[in-house]
């Protein structure tokens, strides 16, 4: 099963299970979504529960929020994460504060899904990684899975969650990454990281597409006699501090890898957690490989390549860290 299949199956099962669940977004009806996440949904669930919205992201989020406050379980799709910014007001300003601001009398059980990330020749406006902006906000949950198995289990949990979840799907993984998914129903807990590869010399902590590059680099390093432990964060808010600290204490060396730009990114928070609580275990500096400090990913192949962290850069960072 591919990642996009996992997205589709998770939503299909949740819609079949719970009448309150519905999907809304641009081109999700007859078109089945630009990435086909809702392929066949109109036929199966009808236009009342599969709503092709006008082109207006702020209202997509605001309407989802209103429906959530009145007992529904909306899954709203933002066609590309680059177009998510008009929702910021409704999501960061409103949805995140619903429970707090009503002293618990209202909740906002909504999911905002968005394909994000680059390496697809998407240029400045179809490549962005928006996670840090949302992960900064208490009241929101931010999920960014890397595999079909995790995607399906976490998306189902997101739909059932009582609080607003930003669900980020790396669009390059949609068809590239395949994996086994059990036939029987399952969910996975939001807020739990997952050790994707056991190791003892250094830890690499990542998520999304970059997790796969880290695993590739780790296999290279294994050939060179360096044992890498790979932790997949899976959820970016709340971060699984215990899992982060456990791997950092185990190897004493941590490399954090993400495609999003480095400064004030998710990696900065992970590094701070390690520095604050596992300092005495460290045998080397906490290192980061991340996107460069330019505003967005350029279109031209030569420039896009400059942006995207690749296996070689990650492997080199691993080698450097292993030498300490």
């Amino acid at each position, binding site marked *: 099963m591919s990642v996009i299949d996992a997205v589709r199956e998770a939503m299909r099962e949740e819609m079949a299970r719970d009448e309150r669940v519905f999907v809304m977004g641009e081109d999700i009806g007859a078109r089945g979504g*630009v990435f086909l996440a809702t392929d066949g949904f109109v036929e199966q669930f009808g236009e009342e529960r599969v709503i*092709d919205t*006008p*082109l*207006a992201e702020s209202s997509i989020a605001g309407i989802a929020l209103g429906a959530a406050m009145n007992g529904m379980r909306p899954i709203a799709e933002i066609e590309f994460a680059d177009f998510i910014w*008009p929702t910021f007001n409704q999501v960061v300003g409103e949805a995140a504060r619903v429970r707090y601001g009503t002293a618990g009398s209202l909740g906002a059980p909504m999911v905002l899904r968005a394909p994000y990330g680059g390496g697809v020749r998407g240029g400045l406006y179809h490549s962005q990684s928006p996670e840090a902006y949302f992960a900064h906000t208490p009241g929101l949950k931010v999920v960014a899975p890397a595999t079909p198995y995790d995607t399906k289990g976490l998306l189902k949990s997101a739909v059932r969650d009582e609080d607003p979840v930003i669900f980020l799907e790396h669009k390059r993984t949609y068809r590239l990454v395949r994996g086994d998914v059990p036939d029987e129903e399952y969910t996975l807990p939001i807020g739990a990281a997952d050790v994707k590869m056991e190791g003892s010399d250094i830890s690499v902590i990542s998520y999304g597409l970059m997790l796969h590059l880290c695993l590739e680099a780790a296999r290279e390093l294994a050939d060179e006699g360096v044992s890498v432990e790979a932790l997949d964060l899976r959820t970016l808010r709340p971060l699984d501090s215990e899992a982060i600290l456990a791997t950092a204490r185990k190897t004493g060396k941590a490399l954090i890898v993400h495609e999003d730009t480095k400064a004030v990114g998710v990696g900065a928070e992970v590094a701070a957690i390690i520095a604050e609580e596992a300092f005495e275990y460290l045998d080397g500096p906490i290192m980061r490989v991340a996107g460069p*400090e330019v505003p967005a990913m350029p279109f*031209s192949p030569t*420039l896009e390549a400059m942006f995207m962290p690749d296996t070689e850069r990650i492997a080199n960072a691993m080698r450097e860290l292993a030498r300490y």
Partner: protein
Amino acid sequence: MDQGRTDIAPGRGPTDSELLEMYRLMALCRALDERVWLMNRQGKAAIVASAQGHEAGQVGSVAALRIGHDRFYIYYRDLAALVSLGLTPAQIMSGFLAKAGEPLSGGRQFPTHGAHAGLNLVNLSNVVATQIPQAVGDALASKMRGEDAVTIVYFGDGAASVGDCHEGMNFAAIHKLPVVFFCENNGYAISVPLSKQMAVDSVAGRAEGYGMPGVVIDGTDVSAVYEATAAAAERARAGEGPTLIEAMVERYLPHTSDDDDSRYRPRGDIEEARKKDPVKMLRERLLADGILDEETDERFSADAKRAVNEATEEVEAAPHPDPSSFYDHVYAGDTGGASSR
């Protein structure tokens, strides 16, 4: 002008020689458009949004304005506006192949995006409708400085649903800004038909609610487009404020080269749309009126073909941007390589 409010004075129509020139530009644009679509299928151009079916709207409106003086906020479907503004096929094509020296963004952006200072041309982003309030601010600046430039902003019917569109139009009307809102209504926003975009059948009908005139025109007829734009520009220059023009056009290719329109659009609908091919219609009309003869037509099409072939050769041979330019222009003064952080 068959619908909506029509309380703007009819504009001047194009002269015969202007019509002939518009036809030449439309034929050139069509040849270029077909070529870049082909280059996408050949794996050379990563993404193409075609202007086919929209050419008369774009060419007719640019022709009614003053290039180098008036100001243009276009969107991704406005290839024909670029051709009309005078960008060469090679310059435009270098955007599709994201080559070094591409004039609008240095190959950093999707084709047709970026800006051109000399042409007062802005196509900042792929994000639908962001250009609308930007164009309003642009017109505000002209007004504040007492300049008589008119700012025209192009957008689709889908864009009209975005809050930015409402907010921009409201401000422009309040301040009587010299803006022409030019909606290219092709009935679709990717797969979403007009009936799911709005409960009314006209974008221009909203103009009254803002306090500006709105007109619906046949956007496949260059003369109608030229006239409406000239009238709107006249109003703007006279300090009477903005106008909303809704040009009814057809999109008979998929939304972009990435789209599969068979999932949502009946074949018959596309066949019907093709009957309103603005290039063909103008050709027939000019031949019938004796403004164009077969010989000139053949010369135009041979010239277009040659220009597009030469552009293809030139652009294919050109290099991609040098990676050393990657960190340039994050902030003012950034050139020559190093990250400023």
